């Protein structure tokens, strides 16, 4: 059953990534150099809507949403900086690079091979990395911190920064702002 869901959900994700143009490095170049904001709008809108939907469902049917929060340590930010350099160079990311294989892009094949090498390098340097301050936690509240309250995993409630208001309120304000931004942003900020 779970494997069938993997095929359906993975297939749908790859289908949507391709159908919005996200597997096309031209789109990603224009996204990053702000010369076409279509993908910014897709990302902002879909994150905002997903956020409001899962916190609304979580309020009405507690336990229905399978939350999974990743730990916040300084390596998350530094990893993001390194990722950003690679993102600009390749104009592909792990998800779009894999999906781009399905439309026969040869540069995506090279990208995925590079990704396997990058993953090997993290495995070889992991022992050293864990001895650096990169793995110090960002927040005193704990590793898996959220903004909105009510995120539960395996019976544990994740610490929230805005824990004095219901999670759905934070989701409506934050998610609503992301959706509004998707509508407000112009088609482009710079020329190609």
């Amino acid at each position: 059953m779970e494997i069938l869901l993997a095929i359906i959900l993975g297939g749908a994700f790859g289908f949507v990534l391709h159908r919005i143009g996200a597997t096309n490095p031209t789109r990603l170049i224009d996204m990053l150099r702000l010369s076409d904001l279509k993908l910014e709008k897709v990302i902002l809108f879909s994150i905002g809507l997903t956020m409001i939907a899962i916190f609304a469902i979580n309020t009405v049917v507690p336990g229905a949403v399978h939350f999974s929060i990743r730990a916040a340590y300084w390596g998350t930010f530094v990893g993001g900086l390194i990722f950003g350099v690679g993102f600009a160079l390749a104009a592909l990311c792990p998800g779009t690079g894999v999906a781009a294989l399905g439309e026969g892009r040869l540069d995506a094949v090279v990208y995925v091979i590079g990704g396997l090498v990058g993953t090997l390098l993290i495995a070889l340097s992991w022992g050293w990395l864990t001895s650096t301050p990169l793995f110090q936690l960002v927040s005193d509240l704990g590793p898996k911190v959220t903004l909105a309250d009510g995120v539960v995993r395996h019976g544990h409630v994740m610490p929230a920064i805005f824990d004095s208001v219901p999670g759905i309120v934070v989701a409506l304000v934050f998610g609503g702002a992301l959706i509004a931004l998707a509508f407000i942003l112009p088609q482009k900020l710079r020329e190609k």
Partner: protein
Amino acid sequence: MYPKGEWNWLKGGLAMAAVAIAAFLLVKPIGVSTQFAVLDTMIWKAVDPDIYTVEEKNGKRVYHSPNPYINKSHGAYAKAADNPVNYGFIFVLAMIGGAFLSVLTGGPKPEGKDKMAPEGFRRYFGDRPLLRYAMAFIGGVLTLYGARLAGGCTSGHMISGISQTAVSSLLFAAGVFATAIPLAILIYRKRGGQ
């Protein structure tokens, strides 16, 4: 410019949210970059059989690796590599099929040159597929190194993580755009004579 057949942003955003919400409700949040570690472990095992070992303990299979990365989280990558028909790995393989299905059913289709060096690259660098491959390779190394250091990529941290209002994912996104946008503006600019 762009090939025909793309959805507009609103339709695309609705479809993307529908997939993300379905994943949250049915199994677990969408993620991709972990599977690079799983595939790496499979390849590593074929080259070096000692990269992980399996031990039966009280009827359970326990995985150990001399490599601290593959050994972390109770040898989760080794376990997944040992059982390739698992949710996360099949999900990522199915993504390739999903994109192929989109091509077959009227989605955008890259033509000839665009499959080697896309139009957006040629616009600034000209017809140089080898340079494109070099940049795609180095970009692949750096994005996966960064994603695995951060514990997720654009899928796991941004779509799934920010939707859950995770602080870690907001930090990751801030890092990504702090370098990606200025660097892209610097790299992809009009060059004289081309």
